[in-house]
């Protein structure tokens, strides 16, 4: 079958690879209909997460049809149209029972790597390096999903593929940020990053009752999408002082909830951005936390901050003093998609949550290298490149 693979730093190829097979009784195999680039893939692509092996199949946000199911699969059947969760989660360990699926004790087949890095191993993520389990990803004609009953969700007929696709990760991650940050009616929420996840976090905050929602970015097409499709207020950080702007618009308090949806390759036009770039290139820090720092400083006293952007290891000049003295609650997580996908599909069916606008560039899988290049460079207003392996 054809698959898009990582072949080196900033290199993506389309190769002929073997088809996946059922390896465990709870597995299902999907024929992938759509699979989409995610901002977190760029960290793999750029070599910032050094656990990729040449030839690894990329992709973790996808929709498809079940073509094979293991003998222990009870609630899915061949022919089901399903959206897949990025993280392999067993559904039976204590973490899964708490609905913290991305922390599954039994989802990462390579626990020794992440335990060494972080002290504990989170679950495994499809198409996301050998540190996260070494599973092949979804930018392929077929994908194996471990624990198929837990990791796939039947899509109601009324939702088309492209809308449902984003329930897999962008919408579930965004929703998780707004939910676990404790967004409640009347809150003021600010989101850093107007990519797919940031937009969905903003939309989730609105649906959870936030009275005012801001999204910070610099890319004009993305800020326009925030206004048009999300209904939130856009702040262009390249043309204004974000902290001053937020203070001005919130009666001097700052947002109640701050959601960081940027991650370890944050960009900044100021001195902080140059500082972080230099330190990262010199390997004196692994991640650039520019947006996270700003969110900490913007957040109101006693407010809540959630980091959705992927960070790998260490950051420098983190304002822990502000976190402590302002009494902030700081939280983060990889996506507990299984917890949110059912509700998101219901909201998508009712038309409360639309996502199609994120799919700015839809193309055959054979064009994946071009798709990633456009996505990385934000060329032609690319928000997400969607691959259609069957076409």
């Amino acid at each position, binding site marked *: *079958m054809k*698959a898009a*693979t990582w*072949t*080196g730093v900033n290199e993506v*190829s389309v*190769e*002929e*690879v*073997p*088809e*996946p*097979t059922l*390896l*465990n*009784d*709870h597995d299902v195999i999907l024929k992938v209909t759509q699979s989409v680039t995610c901002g977190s893939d760029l960290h793999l692509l750029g070599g910032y997460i*050094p*656990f*990729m*092996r*040449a*030839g*690894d*199949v990329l992709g973790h946000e996808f929709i498809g049809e079940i073509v094979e199911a293991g003998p*222990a699969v009870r609630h899915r059947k061949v022919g089901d149209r399903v959206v897949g969760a990025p993280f*392999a989660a*067993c559904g*039976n*360990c*204590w973490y899964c*029972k708490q609905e913290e699926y991305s922390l599954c*004790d*039994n*989802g990462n*087949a*390579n*626990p*020794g*790597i992440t*335990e*060494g*890095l972080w*002290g*504990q*191993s989170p679950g*495994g993520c499809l198409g996301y390096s*050998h540190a996260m*389990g*070494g*599973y*092949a990803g979804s930018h*392929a004609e*077929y994908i*194996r999903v*471990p*624990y198929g009953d837990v990791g796939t969700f039947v899509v109601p007929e009324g939702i088309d593929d492209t809308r449902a696709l984003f329930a897999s990760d962008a919408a579930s991650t965004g929703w998780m940020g707004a939910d676990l940050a404790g967004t409640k009616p009347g809150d003021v929420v600010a989101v850093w990053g107007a990519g797919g996840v940031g937009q969905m976090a903003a939309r989730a905050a609105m649906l959870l009752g936030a009275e005012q929602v801001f999204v910070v970015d610099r890319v004009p097409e993305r800020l326009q999408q925030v206004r048009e499709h999300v209904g939130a207020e856009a702040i262009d950080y390249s043309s204004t002082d974000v902290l001053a702007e937020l203070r001005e618009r919130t009666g001097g308090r700052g947002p109640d909830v701050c959601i960081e949806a940027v991650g370890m390759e944050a960009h900044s036009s100021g001195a902080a951005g140059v500082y972080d770039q230099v330190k990262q290139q010199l390997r004196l820090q692994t991640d650039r936390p520019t947006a996270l720092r700003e969110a900490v400083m913007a957040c109101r006293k006693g407010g809540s901050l959630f980091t959705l952007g992927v960070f790998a*290891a*260490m950051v420098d000049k983190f304002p822990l003093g502000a976190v402590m003295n302002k009494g902030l609650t700081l939280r983060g997580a990889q996506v507990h998609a299984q917890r949110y996908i059912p509700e998101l599909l219901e909201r998508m069916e009712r038309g409360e949550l639309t996502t199609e606008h994120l799919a700015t560039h839809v193309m055959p899988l054979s064009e994946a290298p071009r798709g990633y290049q456009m996505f990385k460079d934000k060329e032609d207003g690319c928000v997400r490149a969607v691959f259609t392996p069957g076409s």
Partner: protein
Amino acid sequence: MPLSDILARAAGLASEAGSGALKQLQHVRLPGVGQASATDDPQTAARRWRAVTVLTDPDQLRSATPAPLTRFGDRVEIRVTPAPGGRGAELAARFREPVGEDDLGELRSALRETKQRTETGEVLRNEPQPHGHRAQTPQGKALDGMDERAAKEGVL
């Protein structure tokens, strides 16, 4: 020595280096990395209880030695206690006599396997996976070595 043999030997060394690096990572004490790792001397390391929490009734684990642990025979002591907060059972094991890193790796792997079999009925596999051409670079072979060793390493 022919060039192909030299390259194969270099790749083998890189793989061993990757496996070794993963072992060492568990003992690194740099700020932010490996903070939960044990720095015990070999004797203490062998005698330290290594434990997993299994979401099951403790009696299920007490009724018989879990299959993955039987291969150690009398070389290990096993302890099962209720976990607090409805988390199930704490299954712990330790060697009676000093052992090397390989034995400790086997024990880690057996404890993880016991937990997975009890909670899910099987051990999750990740090989063979579809993949494209694997360039035989030193970095790639080092990662292969880490991959191979990953189930037996970690802070357990």
